[in-house]
Each structure stands twice: as C-alpha cells, then as structure tokens.
C-alpha cells in the first residue's frame, strides 16, 4: 500500500466532535509547575499544532497522554468517555500512539523489533513470529518511504535521522486513532520531512486525530489545521490556523515583543586571544580553523549533528585530535583533559546539562566549586568557607533562585540548574568560555538572564564562543557567525545585516 494510492477525499469539518479532549489538567514537578489547568481538543481528520517556547509544557502533555506521567488533576476524554491512562500500555489500548521528542528506542535490538516491541505478531503457539514481524516492519517502513532502512539492522548502527524514522514507523505500526508527534522533524532532512508530511496527509484522510509539535512555523502552516498555544504551562489560546497570522501566534507564545529578548550592547573587540588552525579528528571533523578575539561573541551555527559539539570538546581537552594546533593568548596549548584546559583558561559549558553539566546528588555550592577545588582548598584540604563564598558570588550574579546553597541541585528547575552549571565554569575565571546550547530547555526569563550575562561577560573582556541551533539567538547575540556543515566549516559571516536565510542555506549546503 502506498500513501498516494489510498488518499481518500474526506474534507475536515470543524463541526465534528473532538475525538480527544483534555480539561483542567495540571502537573507539577518538585519546584516546577509544568502544566496548569490546560485544555486541548483533537479532532478526527485534523492536525492540531501545539505551539510554545521551550519548557512551555508540550512534552509533559504528550507524556500524560501516553501514560508515562499521571496528571495531578484534570480529565481526559476519548469520545464521550472519561479515561485513565495509568501506563503506556493503557494508552496503546485506547488507540493513542506517539513519536516522542527524545528517541526512546532500543540500541541493541533490531529495527523490526524496535517497531513491534510489545505488539509483535504471534504464531498459533503464542510465540513471536519473527518472519512475519520482519515482513510487517519492511511494509511499514516502505509505506513511509523509508524502505532504505534494513529491518534486520541493529538500531545502534543507524544514523540519528534513520532512528527517528524508526520511531515514526513504531507509531505507525500501531493501529491508532490518535497520533502524537513531538518535534518529529528536528533530525530529518528536507526529503525525509516531505515524506513524513505525505504520511501525515494520509493519516488525516484516514480520519485520525493528530497532534503535531514543532518550533518551525513553515511546517506548522503547511500541515496543521488548528493551533493551540501554551505559555509557561498554561493554555493561552486555540483556534483555526487559517485565521491567524504568524506574528500573532508568536506574541501569544512569548507574551511580549520578541526583539526585547536580546540585550543591546556595544562590542569592544580587542586582539586575537584564541586561534585554532587545521584542527582535525579521524572521523568527526576536519581542518577547523578560526580566531576568537577578546570581548567577542563568536556564534557557531549548524544543523543538528554538524559536529560543533565535537569541535568544542576537542578544544576543551575532552577529545583527542589527529592534527592541528590551538594557541591561547600567544602560547600554543594541547590540552589532554578538561582539567588541563581549565588550567589554561578555556572552559566548556556542555550541551547535555543533566549528563555532562550538573552533578545531581551534590549540593549547589559543591557543584560550583568542583572545577575550582584546587583554588578553594589548601594543600588538598577543603575550606568550606571559601567554597561558599565562591558559590555565593557567582550564583548571585546569575540571579539563582534557591532556598540555600546546601540544597541538592537535583531539586532545582532546569533553568536554575543551567545557572549553576554556568556559575561553575565562570568561577574558574576563564579567558575563553564556550557555551554549547546555553539556553536549551530553559524558560524565557532565564534565557534573557543568560543572554544578559553573556553581554556582561564580554563587556568585562572575556571571550565567548556560543554554539546554538536557534537562529534568533545566533542572530541576536553573535558578533560573528561560523557555520558548520558535516564536520567542516562551511562559511564565516560578520553579523551585520546577516539574515536567517543566508545562515540556513549555508548550514544546509544550498548555494545562495
């Protein structure tokens, strides 16, 4: 079967009753109110776009609908029946399927099994029928236009985009009435996105209700019929998309005019402080060369997987390189560990906060002092007073919200955790600070604080490299922008009259 062949003519009618409706749903985590009294309706044969800034509560809602989280209060109705979804299994059985934001798949299992785990076809003895399962997997993949993926391959050996397609296939393999897609296009190429949209059209025509989450407005306008906007865990508005221009939706999302987010600043750019040339890695990047000047914010832009993080981790001593040289303040350095890089004056604020940034289980002040322990302790002996004063200085500058410095960082909200992470590396008093996706997953207020602080840092003659996949952030903060593509530098721009389209073209390798 192919999507095009089965496309039925069944126009969506707004008069239909909602297939799924949510009302008064709230959900809190320790210290964070993720959702507050929200409502949402999904209609058969229609795509509803759920729109909101990072941390608005979109994924939390998805997890509630798929039985991963339980709402603190509120009601879920499918058709006319109020339902409870205590487990992922219960959600399956009510015909709800989802493609989650993070790829929640099994690296060491085959593609076919990743698609069918939990609902594998059985033979007449009740045993799993691998042959049928593989055949079905191939069919599902083909239907989606992902026939190039080998159903027998181990998932580990697939690239990120293909993994994402497997996640889509898994959702499609369940005969569901309600399909949820949480940023399904984030890791896909243009061609794959096209195929996904074709699939969505088919599902629509099949009368399914679809919830589509994306940060990309072109996609939303192309595929969605309705919109629902969330801000800070609350439902701000909903309606038919055709009636709503983009700028109004953005206003609903952000709650204020967008250009206020980025601080005004007068860059005072000095001499070169860091110069990198010919930096190469056997498999990840090649011939990376650039200069960073004092008091400058250098933006690194690229599509996800372009290799920016790998380059930055190499500069900060975390990965070994095969060739190239790094000069800091006129002295050549070759850091072999993060410890050496920190000593030299280069710090890297990592992208994955939970895994690489905070040490959950240790209190705030110990997190902040960790890279500076040699400074706060005396001949190996801890001096708590020094640690507290260091932690207080930096956390207060970042306007951290916490009840005490002895509080476990794990009890802080994501944005406040990110502040602790940044404070931790600032406390080492570096010359160069590399921020990898510094505002990923933090709320709008904290985002502004981080941006304001970056401005303050460069004003104090520090030099900043900022890796970001968010165009407004790159455009709003950088003095210069380097675009990476597939492990190499694709272009370098001065940020004067730079526009988003130029950057996207460079990142995707499309000639201007």
């Amino acid at each position, binding site marked *: 079967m192919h999507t095009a062949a089965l496309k039925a003519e069944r126009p969506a009618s707004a008069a239909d009753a909602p297939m799924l409706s949510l009302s008064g749903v709230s959900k809190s985590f320790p210290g964070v109110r993720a959702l507050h009294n929200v409502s949402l309706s999904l209609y058969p044969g229609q795509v509803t776009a759920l729109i909101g800034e990072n941390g608005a509560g979109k994924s939390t809602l998805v997890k509630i609908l798929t039985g*991963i989280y339980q709402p603190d209060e509120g009601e879920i109705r499918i058709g006319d029946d109020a339902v409870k979804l205590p487990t992922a299994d219960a*959600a399956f059985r009510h015909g709800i399927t989802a493609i989650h934001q993070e790829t929640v798949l*099994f690296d*060491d299992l085959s593609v076919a099994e990743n698609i069918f785990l939990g609902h594998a076809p059985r033979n007449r003895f009740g045993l799993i029928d691998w042959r049928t399962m593989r055949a079905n997997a191939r069919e599902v993949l083909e239907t989606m236009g992902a026939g190039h993926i080998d159903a027998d391959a181990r998932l580990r050996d697939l690239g990120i985009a293909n993994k994402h397609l497997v996640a889509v296939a898994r959702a499609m393999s369940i005969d569901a009435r309600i399909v949820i897609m949480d940023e399904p296009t984030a890791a896909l190429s243009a061609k794959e996105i096209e195929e996904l949209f074709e699939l969505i059209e088919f599902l629509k025509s099949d009368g399914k209700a679809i919830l589509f989450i994306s940060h990309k407005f072109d996609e939303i306008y192309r595929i969605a019929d309705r919109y629902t906007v969330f801000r800070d865990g609350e439902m701000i508005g909903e309606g038919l998309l055709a009636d709503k221009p983009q700028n109004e939706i953005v206003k609903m999302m952000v709650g204020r005019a967008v250009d206020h987010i980025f601080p005004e600043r007068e860059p005072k750019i000095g001499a070169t402080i860091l110069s990198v040339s010919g930096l190469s890695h056997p498999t990840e*990047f090649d011939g990376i060369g650039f200069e960073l000047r004092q008091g400058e914010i250098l933006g690194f832009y690229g599509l996800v997987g372009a290799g920016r993080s790998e380059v930055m981790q190499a500069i900060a001593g975390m990965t070994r390189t095969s060739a190239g040289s790094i000069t800091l303040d006129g002295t050549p350095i070759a850091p072999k560990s993060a410890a050496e890089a920190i000593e030299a004056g280069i710090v890297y604020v990592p992208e994955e906060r939970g895994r690489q940034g905070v040490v959950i289980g240790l209190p705030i002040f110990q997190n902040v002092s960790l890279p500076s322990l040699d400074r706060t302790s005396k001949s190996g002996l801890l001096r708590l007073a020094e640690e507290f004063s260091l932690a207080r200085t930096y956390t207060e500058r970042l306007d951290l919200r916490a009840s005490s410095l002895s509080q476990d960082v794990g009890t802080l909200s994501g944005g406040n955790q990110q502040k602790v992470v940044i404070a931790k590396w600032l406390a080492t008093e570096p010359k160069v600070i590399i921020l990898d996706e510094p505002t990923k997953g933090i709320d709008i207020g904290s985002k502004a604080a981080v941006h304001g602080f970056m401005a303050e840092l460069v004003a104090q003659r520090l030099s900043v490299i900022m890796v970001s996949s968010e165009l407004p952030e790159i455009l709003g903060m950088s003095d210069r922008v380097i675009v990476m593509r597939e492990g*190499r530098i694709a272009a370098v721009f001065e940020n004067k009259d730079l526009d988003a389209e130029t950057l996207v073209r460079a990142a995707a390798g499309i000639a201007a």
Partner: protein
Amino acid sequence: MSALLKYREMFLVAAIALLIAAITLRFPAFARPQNLAAVFNDTSILVILALGQMAVILTRSIDLSMASNLALTGMIVALTNANFPGIPIPLIILEALTIGAVLGAFNGVLIWKLGIPAIVVTLGTLTIFRGATFVVAGGTWVNADRMTPAFIALQRGEFLGMPVLSWFAIVAIVAFYLVMTRTPVGRSIYAVGVNPSAAVYAGIDVGRAKFVAFCISGMVAGLCGYLWVSRYVIAATEVANGYELNIIAACVIGGVSIAGGIGSVGGAVLGALFLGIISNALPVINISPFWQMAISGTAILAAVILNARGERKQGRIILKKAEAA
C-alpha cells in the same frame, strides 16, 4: 539474529574447539564422543544455572543468591525425600521448582517494590538462604543412606543414549531459547536491559520484568538444587558454596554483558561449557588441579576484554557520512 552476536558465539565455539584440540594432544581419548558427552553431562547443572543468571543479568541486575538458593532448595527436597520416601520424584521436582521460584520471587519483590539494588538484596539473601539451609536441617547432612534409590537414580537413567541429567540441560536450553527469543516476556527482559527508560515508553513495567527474571533464576536454582544433591548424593549446608561466582563467570565468558541487554542463550551455554571442559580436562591431562583457578580467571579476563572490543561504541563518523552523501 544480529551478526555481531553470531560472531561472538562463533568465536567461543572456535575457542572451545581449540581448547579440546589442545587437550586431545596431551590426552587423545578426550575428544572421543563418549567422553565429550560425559563432559556435557558433568557441566549440565552449570549450564542450567548460567541460563537463569543470564536472564537476570540481561535486566541490568545480578543474582548472587543462586548458589545459596540451590543449597536451601536441595536440602529441603532431600529432607522431604528422607522423611517421606513415598512421595514420587516428579512431585519432588515440582517442589524444587516451586521453592526455588518462591525464593527468587522474594529477591524480586524487594527489587521491584522497594527499588533496592539487586546486588544488595542478593548479597543479603546469599547469607540468609544458606543460614536457613543449616537451620532447616538442624545442622546435619543428608547422606546417601537417607535418600531413596529413585531420588538418586532419576538423573542417572538413560534416555535415547544420554543420561537424564543431560536431557534436563537440553530441555532447559530449548525452553530458554524459546522464552528469550519468542515470547513477550523474554523480549521485555532484553528491552529493560537495553534501555530502561525507553522500556517505560514501550509499555513495559521495568520492575516487573526484573521480578520475572528473578523468579526464573530462582526456579532454575531450585531445580538445580535437586539435581545437585541427587548427583553428589549429599545435601549439606556448604553445598555449592561460592558457586555463584562460577555461574556469573560462565555468563561473562559467554558474552553476556554485565551492563544488561546483551547476551544470548547460545553464549551462556558455551561459556558454561568452556568452564566445564577446563575443570574436566585438567585432572586428565595431568596438570595439577591447582592451575584450574588461575586458568578460569585468565579466561574471564580475556573474554571481557574481547567482548568490550566488540561492543565498543562506534563514533558518530560525521565525516564518513559527509563523503558518502
């Protein structure tokens, strides 16, 4: 299934073939089919135990209490047999399976419902079960003279030219193969080990999968309790003392990853056979049995190093993909 797993098992088969060849050089009779069959028979109990342990290790847990469970169940069935000689042996086997499973479920419940790490729970039950063995028997041993002939004879009987004990192992291998590869329970055990958080999204209860794995390992240990006491015709507190580490070693040599999610029935069986061959061969080729321990230690280390190479995560390889595109 996966090519890599196949490769790993082939590697073990090759290592075992090499081992047998080397032994045969010193002692030609070793490779005779009857002798190899005898070695398999001798290793049957370890094979069955290794399969049970594999199910647990796959879920990122470990069962240190298997040998103690074996001793306790073995003692209880031996006492049952001694005190009620009229009870038929199939019922005795059922008793062994049940008691073993109950002891395994005790571990499993603590892990599932209280979330205590498996290594802590089974470290505790390791001593509790063994102490209980002493207590239920009042500190005595049950010797051959108190067991019925049928109790002792069952596993020694022959069926289609092979001892019944070997058939126990063969049935266990087939059953495990089917359960681990062809049933939702088996696959959920793998899934939980590969990625516990993804398992939640797939509708699998992680704690329950661990509980099931512990019931399986307990049941298997219970069965081996009967097999052990009837094989060595003695039930004592010290039976199989320290054997838990041999079982784990068999799994490790067989390529079962201690980090969970990776391992196969074939691998665990081959790992157990590898250890069985070594312990059988050393006395006959006149290498002092004192070498046995060092040799199996070296084999374990070699296996971990080799497996780690096979498993080493590939880099992202951005550049290669760029060239291919």
